[in-house]
């Protein structure tokens, strides 16, 4: 079964990505986590995302498009990246989520991925 790990990050962690003093430690933590998942062969796909300052939110209402600068909700933690992993059950997915760097200082949401849609019953 596939689960998506939605990895949330606080502002301070996003800032470390480009801080010459902290970038190495920041990326080192993530690389170790991703490397362990890769070694276990559980990764289906995954990406890091650029920071929330690059986000743009779009809505269409009554045919009119409104575009907003920034993420849809202004919260302390923002989505920093995601992985889809293939594991037998939620318990295993939670184990991987708990090993991610952001579980220690922010949060990880774990959601099962919808199975492929089958054609509608005749």
């Amino acid at each position: 079964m596939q689960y998506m790990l939605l990895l949330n990050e606080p502002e301070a962690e996003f800032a470390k990505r480009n801080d010459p003093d902290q970038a190495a430690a920041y990326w080192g933590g993530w690389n170790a986590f991703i490397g362990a998942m890769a070694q276990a062969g559980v990764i289906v796909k995954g990406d890091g995302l650029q920071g929330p300052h690059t986000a743009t939110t779009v809505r269409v209402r009554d045919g009119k498009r409104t575009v907003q600068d920034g993420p849809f909700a202004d919260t302390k933690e923002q989505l920093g990246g995601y992985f889809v992993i293939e594991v037998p059950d939620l318990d295993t997915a939670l184990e991987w989520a708990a090993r991610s760097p952001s579980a220690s200082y922010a949060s990880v949401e774990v959601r099962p991925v919808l199975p492929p849609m089958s054609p509608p019953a005749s």
Partner: protein
Amino acid sequence: MNSARDTAERVARASYGRLIAILSARSRDIAAAEDALAEAFASALRSWPDSGLPTNPESWLLTAARNVMKNQLRHRSIVEAAIPELLAHSETMVEDGATFPDERLKLLFVCAHPAIDAGIRTPLMLQTILGLDAVRIGSAFLVPPTTMGQRLTRAKAKIKDARLRFELPSADDMPQRLSEVLEAIYAAYGIGWDAAYGVEAGGRGLTDEAIYLGRLVVSLMPNEPEAMGLLALMLYCDARRDARRDELGQFVPLDRQDARQWKRDLIIEAENLLTAASRHARFGRFQCEAAIQSVHAQRPITGRKNYEAIITLYRLLAQHRPSIGATIGLAAVLVEAGQVKEAMSLLDELAADAKLTYQPYWVTRGKALHALGEIRTGNKAIQTAIGLTEDAPVRAFLRALLSSGAG
């Protein structure tokens, strides 16, 4: 007809959880298992009067319920591709009726899974293991039956859709996971205890259901001292249930209870459990609380209340499992033992928001102030406690405390 109905009902009570656990262990679909079992019971009531009772009613019901589930699978074109595999599994699962495995422990661990909201774990256990319906559970939890039904449905959907693990936890996780199972069982006991004499009748009888679950865990996990501790704790409390009220329905505090009314067989069973648990030499919250009850139970034998032992146990409890209940328990026995100063400082240190509406805090504070000779402020605390009490006889008891303090 009657005997068919009686047998069906007897099997329903004794085997409900066993059958649900087996039917849902592979599919994780508790709701489908419940529906299938309900249908199996209905067809038992239809056919048993004519065909006679089967030699093994439990295995008859299991087979009937499995057939219902198989037919449902056949009708669901969406899972067509998976049917051959599922059918193959279900064929291999048809064992000799007498020896099918007990999967209830797995079901208990799923019900108390950390991914399931703590507030719904106890209702889930009551429904899946004991077969209580949403109306009964809702009335015990003071929630409308439809709301309780929706919460239960949501939890079952999560178990199935998010694919929670239907296995026993690993050795590393076991202590934490087991304590969550035990907490959920104890919550049922607490609700039943509060309701035993209360205005709300909904939770009445839940103490028996909780003890049933406690016995179940002990029988399925005979080497877990905390499971024994929980069962012992519930049995000690249950042994004194009738002695909590006098013939006029007045509340009788523990110290003034007539020990001849305590149920000796339950106390002996609890003592044996606690002794067996202590051999494992693994301290835990429930063993500690049961040990406190054990000291209380010895009062009629020794003729005195062993304050030192109770204080020591409460200190242990407050240290290992800090909680407002443990702190208040310690403070209350310190007051009784004359160590009022320490009791007051414990009470003062508690967080303001936690104690504001906690009735035992105000009772203990009132008694401590009375012991210090501060009658007026003590009475004020007791008044607050009365305002926070649901049970009328307990209110009357507290009012009596007021007048004696004022004298």
